[in-house]
């Protein structure tokens, strides 16, 4: 995260490859289910063996034996509907919820976050020198309407995507943050409104950032968990 600061995001998880290296972010939407970006995975049919989700730590390289760290292997993966850029990961066992590990709410189906809503992204990705990428960083972003976003993005932003305001200083997601959450505070709860998808430029000043709009795929998330 560029332009953020160390923070707390107990639903943000770290996806690790079989060597234990951080690969992408993700969001804990149910005790045994993590939502992340399709681009982080090689194939749709099965998770690569040895991949894990790490929860409950703020460090990118937690020390062995860190008491709050939970490491849970990925048991199954399901690719999202066409054009969603989403993947749901089923964990081998449920995560234990505590002060460091929490679920994030899902929005109602087809809910549109009002422009001006304050949201935040979180991740262990690059900071481009604006902070310490060894810890979880959080940055505040404000939602803008798709029509406003499309002025700058020249009509490329679809309804299944949402945008956050551009700033004149670089603030936003970067390498290693993909798959992580855009969470917005609504009615006293944090709601997963977007997923960080690979954007062409990292936290580019003057350009709105684009995310996958989760409310368009909530029905699919419920269906996968139910089935």
């Amino acid at each position, binding site marked *: 995260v560029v332009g953020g600061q*160390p923070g*707390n*995001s*107990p*639903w943000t998880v770290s996806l690790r490859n*079989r*060597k234990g290296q951080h690969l992408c972010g993700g969001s804990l939407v149910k005790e045994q289910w993590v939502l992340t970006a*399709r*681009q*982080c*995975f*090689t*194939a*749709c*049919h*099965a998770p690569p*063996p*040895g991949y894990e989700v790490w929860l409950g730590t703020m460090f990118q390289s937690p020390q062995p034996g860190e008491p709050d760290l939970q490491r849970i292997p990925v048991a*199954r993966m399901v690719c999202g*509907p*066409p054009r*969603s850029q989403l993947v749901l990961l089923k964990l081998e066992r449920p995560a234990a919820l505590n*002060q460091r590990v*929490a*679920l*994030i*709410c*899902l*929005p*109602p189906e087809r*809910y*549109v*976050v*009002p422009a001006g809503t304050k949201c935040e992204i979180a991740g262990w990705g*690059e900071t*481009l020198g604006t902070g*310490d990428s060894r*810890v979880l960083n959080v940055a505040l972003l404000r939602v803008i*309407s798709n*029509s406003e976003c499309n002025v700058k993005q020249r009509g490329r932003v679809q*309804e299944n995507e949402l945008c956050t305001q551009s700033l004149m200083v670089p603030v936003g997601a*970067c*390498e290693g943050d*993909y798959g992580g959450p855009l*969470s917005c505070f*609504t*009615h006293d*709860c*944090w*709601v997963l409104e977007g997923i960080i998808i*690979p954007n*062409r*430029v*990292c*936290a580019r000043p003057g350009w709105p950032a684009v995310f996958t709009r989760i*409310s368009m795929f909530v*029905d*699919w998330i419920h*269906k996968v968990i139910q*089935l």
Partner: protein
Amino acid sequence: QRSQLNDFQVLRGTELQHLLHAREPGTWQENVTNVEECAGQCGPLLDCRAFHYNVSTHGCQLLPWTQYSLHTRLRRSGHCDLFQKKDYVRNCIMDNGARYRGTVATTTDGLPCQHWRHKFPVDHKYTPTLRNGLEENFCRNPEGDARGPWCYTTDPVRRFQSCGIKSCREAACVWCNGEDYRGLVDRTESGRECQRWDLQHPHPHPFEPSKFLDKSLDDNYCRNPDSSERPWCYTTDPQVEREFCDLLSCGVPGFPLGPEAQSRQEATTLNCFGGKGEGYRGTANTTTAGVPCQRWDAQSPHQHRFVPEKYACKDLRENFCRNPDGSEAPWCFTSRAGMRKAFCYQVPRCTDDVRPLECYHGAGEQYRGSVSKTRKGVLCQPWSAKTPHKPQFTPAQHTELEANYCRNPDRDRHGPWCYTTDPGTPFDYCALPRCAHDQPPSILEPPDQVLFEECGLRLDRPNYWRSKMR
């Protein structure tokens, strides 16, 4: 530091049965400390050729036969691993093959071997014993002949002949950087014995075979799971962590490859990447976030081992995104000193979706066509079937659910779907696009009221994280 297990080849989840009741395996010994203790028992015994190890009960059963003995068969087993002595199951020889105990029984010219216990047509001095391994008419090397295992032939004209069994070094060669090498050499170039991949001593390492199933990290054989220059292994010498193995190259880089080698190469792509993108040969040269890539032939700002000359098969041209090390996607070293490497996720993944033939309107609730494959080409499960997935929607409730055709009984907004015949994928969307000009209703309307109860709550203690950082 050498493990007794090094003398064995393992077949996980496998049991070896003898089909004749007259032959009895050893009794099960329960509660041996670990599998190495079991190997230590079997190793020195001349009549022990293999053993079963029960992972859950730590049981151990010694066996006087192997999978190549007569009247035996392998069977899948949920609790048993089978360890067989390498000398009995390897199809190649180490050194001069004096320890070879395989079942090859013909000579280089194809002449059948004479039984060692027979003195006709060739009379000879040998008497078969457990120690010299002169069994049946199998090729052996009882006196360490430099030409390897041999036998007396049944052809009166030819008294004896070498069997021409290849050395393990010659039996399999290395293409490119040897990621595909599956040979049976278990020594490094300096002659040190390799550490088993499934052991963490003397050198702890991340390459657990169960996590790297595609890398075939078998026993203690030389492999290249991290796209090093050549196959290598951890050594059993505590002072030397890892070393390359001295293996034969199948061809010189740049030399025209034969059909076998070509079939090994992953399909190349230019505008997207398939799988992990090892075959990506496009010209993207920035990271996802637009940071320019460092040239592969440069060692600044980042020093690295991926020198183009040493990785001729990986096409490390200019500063193009590539995947020379089996990472998750094409990547590059970046031109920023503070950011070593990053993925090139701006290169899209090549879709493996099948080409759709028909289309649907709305959400496809009215679709009554006969497409019966998912977007990935997996055949749909009939709606009336109960396996591999137990359906929640059946033809009895929904008359439109015919055969295994794609339908939308739950009005899924993402289109017609079906249960799949893949046990790992309960359902998926079908190879059907929404019909052109059929726009779904817009969602960009005034927002609804929202209520949440349990999720999305966190303890915000502004000073806590700052103190934790300190």
